[in-house]
């Protein structure tokens, strides 16, 4: 069987990052993020291919990949919603935001909704505690989430 490889675009983006670091291994996190940007998550095959590109062992790259909250090693929906569950958001109803989303989408944390659109995950403090509770929808920070979390975060009217 042919070995699955990264796309030329992914390889070009990773190589461009290599120039910023004196050691290829320094690009480990960037490489994982580049793969994820193109594929939403990092499969075993992609991880091995990226490790090869960086001249490090797959185990070394896996140790990095599994360490970080924002690298997904299993498939996620098109939009990942991270709701903050740290202290101020917790105090002001952050957990309920997560519960409402999961109930509406009929998923557990980390699962993909049936239509493949969403995954809901908790995240640590997003640095907007004066607007708690908060969440991140894709790359976008949403502030002052009310009881109507589902409509506010999923954009349904």
């Amino acid at each position: 069987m042919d070995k699955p490889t990264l796309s030329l675009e992914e390889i070009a983006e990773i190589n461009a990052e290599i120039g910023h670091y004196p050691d290829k291994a320094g690009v480990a996190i960037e490489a994982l993020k580049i793969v994820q940007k193109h594929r939403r998550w990092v499969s075993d095959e992609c991880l091995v291919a990226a490790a090869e590109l960086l001249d490090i062992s797959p185990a070394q790259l896996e140790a990095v990949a599994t360490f970080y909250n924002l690298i997904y090693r299993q498939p996620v929906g098109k939009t990942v919603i991270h709701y903050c569950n740290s202290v101020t958001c917790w105090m002001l109803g952050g957990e309920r935001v997560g519960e409402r989303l999961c109930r509406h989408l009929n998923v557990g944390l980390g699962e993909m909704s049936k239509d493949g659109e969403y995954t809901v995950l908790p995240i640590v403090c997003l640095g907007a505690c004066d607007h708690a509770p908060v969440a991140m929808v894709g790359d976008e920070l949403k502030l002052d989430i009310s009881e109507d979390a589902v409509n506010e975060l999923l954009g349904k009217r």
Partner: protein
Amino acid sequence: MEQTNKPLTKNIRPDRAFATLADYESTGGYQGLRKAITELQPKDVQQWVKDAGLRGRGGAGFGTGLKWSMVPDIDTPQTRYLIANADEMEPGTFKDRLLMEQDPHQLIEGMIIAAYAIQANIAYIFLRGEYHLARQRLDNALQEARSKGFLGEHILGSGFSLEIVLHTSAGRYICGEETALINALEGKRATPRAKPPFPLVSGLWGRPTVINNVETLCNVPHILHYGIEWYQGLGRGVDKGTKLFGASGRVKYPGLWELPLGIPIREIIENYAGGMKDGYKLRGFLPGGASTDFLLPEHLDVVMDYEAVAKAGSRMGTGTMIVLDDKTCPVQMVLNLEQFFAQESCGWCTPCRDGLPWTVTLLKDIIAGKGRSEDLDTLAGLTRMLGPGNTFCALAPGAMEPLQSALKYFREDFERYITVKESA
């Protein structure tokens, strides 16, 4: 020269539109750099910052100029690195994000001056992965700075060259610890390193490395531009300068304000945050983020100086307060904090890796009505076993600060869970 008493936030507008390079330069931006690079030697810049009395704003409060002066042999050309620690992830902390999103050139100018002071030619911004807007604005500002000759070869016609690389992380609290940050930047699992050697001597890729917090670096241009005397005049107490202070929780107006160091905590909570929301009373507060000890209403007159808050039994930390009201259970609040620390422990050393989940289990059991009186002794024991000196880094000792102070100040809340069960 127009002076200001809010140097860090003077360009931050209420509508939150961000300061462009033109905006930044119109209020004295890049003048501090000009002065440093054309009039002063690197050692002079170190001395200026030392004399001004700037201390680290990331939590530990180490003297910034002193830190710079500890980099060995800056007269000998060799690779050195400067890193801006922009991995803001301490729960309850929301200050560096504002600085980077609203006035990105301030950080960049501070970094160029700092790099000049330690003769580093490469600098990294270690930005947390969740700060997407900050990434866009910093990226944009870095390009602007390059095109105007503030970055690159022969900055402002001098012999000094610098490149700044923006590195975005992928979400892990431990990366804020400076030796873990170095490992992360090298592409390794972000576990802390043993010290010594200190990063100042052997840091990133084995080279001398200075790591400063974003807010710390943002102070630097103003010290150079407006002068030492002006800077010292900004503090109200022992410590110099201003600081971003914040309050979150059930206060009337949660927010962030640039205020003089030495300001009484009461003024921040009562005047700026407007006191508690109607129907809630102040029970206590964490003065500087999740890893600081609780203080009580009786401590409201303590002033926000490094030593004053320490004397009261806590730390100024990041200066962003988390306020506990009378309708939130302190035991459950501590459980939330300890769950955070247990999750974010890197797993490198045993007390932290095993002690934090144990702490979480005990707290959960107590809250579930399955606690026994001796559990409180076990928790107290854990605060010692996970305390300073027993772990590789400050994560576990920091995690123990809210727990040990909660056991002291809110003991009756813990006991209530247990006695209800024991009498049942």
